[in-house]
């Protein structure tokens, strides 16, 4: 059996991190959840380890230092050929944010549900789909 790729969570709010962790614990998803606190940490990680161990990236928009949109922009500028999905998981419902993210190469845009149960369900659905249903090129 192949090694399960990691789910990379880029999120500055420790509460949201905990909510995602709890949601994952309550599910039967086996992928490891790795948490990074902001965009800079993500870029550092990618520079050091590349993409090979990642199933998908789940990223908040509003973060200190490098925001989600900044990260998307940097990745595009750096000309990275990214073959792993980037899912924006944000509390912003601003249409302009949604538009910008897709333009900068995000694969999905999901608004964090206010309802706790719904939040957990959404995280589980996302993890299930992007880590286990969706297929990415093997060499990425």
């Amino acid at each position: 059996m192949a090694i399960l790729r990691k789910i990379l969570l880029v999120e500055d709010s420790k509460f949201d991190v905990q909510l995602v962790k709890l949601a994952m614990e309550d599910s039967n998803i086996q992928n490891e959840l790795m948490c990074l606190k902001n965009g800079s940490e993500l870029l550092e990680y990618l520079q050091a380890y590349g993409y090979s161990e990642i199933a998908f990236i789940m990223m908040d928009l509003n973060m200190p230092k490098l925001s989600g949109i900044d990260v998307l922009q940097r990745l595009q500028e750096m000309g990275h050929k990214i073959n792993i999905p980037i899912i924006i998981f944000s509390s912003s419902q601003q249409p302009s944010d949604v538009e910008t993210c897709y333009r900068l190469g995000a694969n999905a845009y999901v608004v964090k549900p206010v309802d706790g149960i719904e939040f957990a369900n959404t995280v589980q659905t996302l993890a299930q789909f992007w880590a286990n249903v969706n297929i990415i090129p093997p060499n990425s």
Partner: protein
Amino acid sequence: MNYSFTKEKLISASKEDLLHTIRQLQEENARLKAEKDEAQEALALAEASTAYIKAELQDVNFVFKEILESSMAGYWDWHMVEDYEYLSPTFKKMFGYEDDELINHPSSWQKLIFQEDIPVVFGKFQEHVASRGKVPFDSVARYRHKDGRTVWVYCRGRVVRWGKDGSPERIVGSHIDISVLKEVEAELKAYNVKVNELNDELARKAQLLEVSNAELERFVYSVAHDLRSPVRHISSFSQLLTRRAAHKLSELEKGLLDNIITSINRLGQLIDELLEYARMGNKELNYEEVSLDKIVKRCLHTLGYMMQGREIELKVENLPTIWADELMMEQVFLNLLSNAIKYTGREELAEIKVVGRETPTAYEIVVEDNGAGFDMSYQHKLFAIFQRLHDVDEFEGVGVGLANVQRIIQRHEGTIWAYGEEDKGARFHFTIPKKEV
């Protein structure tokens, strides 16, 4: 006839001849006498005519002066060669002087006129002279009244006699006091300046208001947005706690936790609607052709969950295709229709009607229901943000929906109004002006 008599002729002339000559002389004398009489008669006649014409002229002159004087116009008659200028009594009176207080000479008015106005007057006069009278001579100048005030005079004149070398010899003209006109003009000018100032002030205030409104909306948006995360966390953690610790909690404790969740969810909903409201104010309108019929169908589909298990008679009639922002129009109908569905919740058979009408300049849409309605005396609160006319326990909601609807309609330059009666139903009307496509 030759009347020279020589000695020779006298000698040679016969008596007959002499008599003949005498007769001739007598005839000639009579004829001359007749001619003289005739001439004397003609002269007498001419004298009489002259007297008559003179009298007539005097009369005309009198009438002319009367007219001028009574019209309050001063009259002047400048004999340049003789260095004399007649100045009429009214002319002098205009500046506060009696007839005998100013001599009839150009120096009289040249002392009274504002020195800085002299070049203007003379310039105008030069033009008149240079054009041999074709360009009329008229000018406006200020004079100093005897009591010190300024008299504005409109002066108009004409050269009536030219010298052989083309120089003016006699000019006549009139003076009209236009001080009152000038006062009114000045007042009008001041008034206009004031009006312009007020307009500028108004425009500036409107702009400030717009800026502060926009700032307020951005502020509301950012506050609401920042509130959203903590609210979400409270909600989520309370729910997780309920789920994980339910078996350890008493019914009362579970109830308390439930209250937290209900309240926080309501706060979340409020924030979401506030965000939506702020967004609608900031967002630019994206005008396109919008089929209201399609939008209403889509909204009814979206709101299907609210209608499950309910007896609702829906009537959608005559909805036009209009020029509007599609997303915003969808918001309008989502709000009005969900209200209609919500407030007919207690009716056995709910009736909801959506009807379109057309006027020459606008489309009018009416959304009507037979639900809980409202008291018309609270009409002013209907569209105000966070205002509710029913208890939350009775009908849920946070009081942003209709405020948002009104704002969207207003941003489309339309109007919205409503009629209602408690327990009879409510009827919402709104208009969207027709636009050139």
